[in-house]
C-alpha cells in the first residue's frame, strides 16, 4: 500500500516567501492589502502583547484613554478599585464607538446613541427603556424577556500592567508578559521600568507614509545609524566602531540595540562613515549635556517589543514609540516621552532639551522618517523584488557589534511564523 506524503504548501494569501529565507524580504509584504489584513488578524489580534499606555497616564480611578492595537480601537480604563481594563471601542448594541475622546475621566462609559451604560470594566450596567415604556397601566416595548445585561458587555482584552507599563492582548491565553519577553529582553525592559513612578513629559505624533514594519526594521538596524545620521555619528552618539551589541529573544521578534557614547574622533571605522564630520561643533553644547542615570554605561538602548512598541533611551531622552498601522502604506507613530517622578529640576530640563533629537523634528529621527518614506516609495517600484538582508550573515544570532542585520532577520523569522509563511522552504 502506497504512502502518500502531503507536502504542505507554503503559500499564504497566494504568496510564497523567497527560497533564500529571511535573508530576503519580498517587497509585497509592505504593499499587499491582503497581507495587511492577515497581519491584523494573526498578529495584532492574535497571541501578542500590545502596548497601550503608561499607568502614569491614568493615575486616578475613572481615568481613561483611547488608543488602538493594530487598527482595532480600544479604551484603556482604571476602575473604581484601581484595576486597569482594556476594551474594544465598539458598543454591544449597534456598534457605535463608545468612547469618543482621546482621554478623560468618567465613572462610566456611556454610548451616545442610545445611552447604554457600561462600567469601567466593560460590563453593561444599564439599558434605557429596557423594560419598555408605560402605556396606560402596562408597559410596551423594551427588550425581550430573555435579555440579560451579562450577555452584552464590551469585548474585554487581557491586560497586564508591568512596572507602570500597560499591555493588552485579544488572546486570553497569553502567557505572562515576562515570559513573552524572555529573560534577556526582560533585563533591558526592567532596566528602564524598575517600578519607579514614571512621569509623562508629553506627546508628539506623526503620520508616516510607510508600512509599519519599516519602523520596526529601522530600529532593529544598527547598520544605518552609523551612516544615515550625521548628527549621531559626528558627535559620537552612535557609531559602528563603538562597544555595542544586538540581542534578541528566542523567537527573534523582540530585540535590543545597545551602544555607548564615544568620542568625536576619526578611526579606522570612520573611513566607512561618509557622514562623519570631525569639525562639527555646537554653538550651544548644552543640547547634548547628559547625565548618567542607569546602572551601566550604555547611552543608547533601543528595544523593539513585538509587534508595536519601541522603548527608546538615547542618553537621557526616554520615550515609548507606539506604532499604529493605517493600512499597508502608512502608520501613525505616537511618541510618549517620559521621565521619572523623582527627576529633579535639572533632569527635567535635560530631558526636554534632548527631546530635540527625537520626534517629528528630531535632529536624528527626521532622517529615519525620510528613510522609511523613501523605502515605501522605492519598494513600490517593483513589488516582486526582494530586500537583500545578508549583512552579518544569513543567521539570526546575537552579535556584539553593529555591522549586522541579524535582528531584521530575527524579526522576519518570527513574522513568518505568525503569518504562516515558511521562509526558505524548498520550492
Amino acid at each position, binding site marked *: 500500500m502506497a504512502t502518500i506524503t502531503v507536502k504542505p504548501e507554503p503559500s499564504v494569501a497566494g504568496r510564497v516567501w523567497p527560497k533564500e529565507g529571511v535573508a530576503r524580504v519580498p517587497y509585497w509584504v509592505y504593499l499587499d492589502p491582503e497581507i495587511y489584513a492577515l497581519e491584523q488578524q494573526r498578529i495584532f489580534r492574535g497571541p501578542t502583547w500590545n502596548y497601550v499606555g503608561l499607568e502614569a497616564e491614568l493615575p486616578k480611578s475613572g481615568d481613561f484613554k483611547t488608543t488602538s492595537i493594530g487598527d482595532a480601537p480600544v479604551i484603556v480604563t482604571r476602575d473604581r478599585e484601581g484595576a486597569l481594563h482594556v476594551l474594544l471601542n465598539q458598543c454591544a448594541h449597534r456598534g457605535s464607538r463608545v468612547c469618543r475622546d482621546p482621554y478623560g475621566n468618567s465613572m462610566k462609559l456611556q454610548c451616545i446613541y442610545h445611552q447604554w451604560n457600561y462600567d469601567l470594566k466593560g460590563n453593561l450596567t444599564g439599558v434605557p427603556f429596557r423594560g419598555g415604556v408605560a402605556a396606560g397601566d402596562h408597559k410596551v416595548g423594551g427588550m425581550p424577556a430573555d435579555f440579560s445585561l451579562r450577555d452584552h458587555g464590551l469585548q474585554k482584552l487581557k491586560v497586564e500592567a508591568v512596572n507602570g507599563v500597560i499591555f493588552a492582548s485579544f488572546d486570553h491565553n497569553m502567557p505572562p508578559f515576562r515570559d513573552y519577553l524572555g529573560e534577556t529582553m526582560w533585563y533591558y525592559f526592567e532596566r528602564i521600568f524598575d517600578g519607579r513612578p514614571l512621569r509623562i513629559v508629553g506627546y508628539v505624533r506623526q503620520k508616516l507614509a510607510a508600512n509599519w514594519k519599516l519602523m520596526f526594521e529601522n530600529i532593529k538596524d544598527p547598520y544605518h545609524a552609523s551612516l544615515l545620521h550625521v548628527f549621531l555619528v559626528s558627535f559620537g552618539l552612535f557609531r559602528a566602531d563603538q562597544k555595542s551589541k544586538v540581542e534578541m529573544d528566542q523567537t527573534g521578534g523582540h530585540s535590543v540595540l545597545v551602544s555607548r557614547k564615544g568620542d568625536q574622533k576619526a578611526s579606522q571605522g570612520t573611513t566607512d562613515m561618509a557622514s562623519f564630520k570631525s569639525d562639527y561643533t555646537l554653538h550651544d553644547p548644552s543640547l547634548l549635556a547628559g547625565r548618567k542615570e542607569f546602572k551601566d554605561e550604555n547611552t543608547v538602548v533601543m528595544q523593539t517589543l513585538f509587534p508595536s512598541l519601541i522603548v527608546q533611551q538615547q542618553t537621557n531622552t526616554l520615550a515609548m514609540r507606539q506604532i499604529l498601522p493605517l493600512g499597508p502604506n502608512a502608520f501613525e507613530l505616537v511618541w510618549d516621552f517620559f521621565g521619572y517622578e523623582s527627576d529633579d529640576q535639572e533632569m527635567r530640563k535635560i530631558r526636554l532639551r534632548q*527631546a530635540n533629537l527625537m520626534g517629528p523634528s528630531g535632529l536624528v529621527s*527626521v532622517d529615519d522618517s525620510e528613510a522609511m518614506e523613501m523605502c515605501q516609495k522605492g519598494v513600490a517600484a517593483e513589488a516582486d523584488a526582494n530586500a537583500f538582508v545578508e549583512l552579518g550573515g544569513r543567521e539570526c544570532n546575537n552579535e556584539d557589534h553593529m555591522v549586522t542585520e541579524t535582528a531584521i532577520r530575527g524579526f522576519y523569522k518570527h513574522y513568518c511564523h505568525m503569518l504562516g509563511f515558511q521562509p526558505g522552504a524548498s520550492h
Partner: protein
Amino acid sequence: MTDREAKWAAEDLLDRYVQCLDEERLEEWPEFFTDSASYRVMPRENVERGYELATMSCDSKGMMKDRVVAIRNASVFSRRYLRHLVTNVRITGREGECYLVQANYAVLQTLPGEETKVFNAGRYADKVLLGNGEPKFQEKIVIYDSLQIPGMLVIPV
C-alpha cells in the same frame, strides 16, 4: 508707541519672518530673535494638558543656529515648498518692554509630485521687543492644532 503702531511693527516683523522661511533663507532665521530669546513649537495637546514637551525647542540663540546648521548639514529630508499664511495679528498685552502678540497661521506644503496641502496650522503666541532698534522676538511659541504631523517638521514654523 500706541497699540496700533505696535501691531504694525509686529506685522512687519511677522511678514519678514515668514517670507524668510518660505524663501529658505534659514541662516537669517535666528536674526529675527533677540540674543536672549527662546523658541518653541508645541502641540496644542501638550499645552492644554500641561505637558512641557516641545516638538522643537531652542533655549538660546545658539541652539537656533545649531538647528540651522543641522538642517543644512546633518539632516536628511526631501526638498519641499512651504508657504506661510499669517493672519489676525493682535496685540494682547505688554510684559515689561515686550508686546504680547498673537496671530493665527497656516503652513501650506508642496512636496514634489504632490498637491499643495495644509501641513500645519495653529497660533503664534509671541513676545516682541519693539524698542528703538529693529523689532525682534524675545520669545516665540508656536502652538499647533495639527497634532498628527504628516511626515516630518524640519523647517521652523
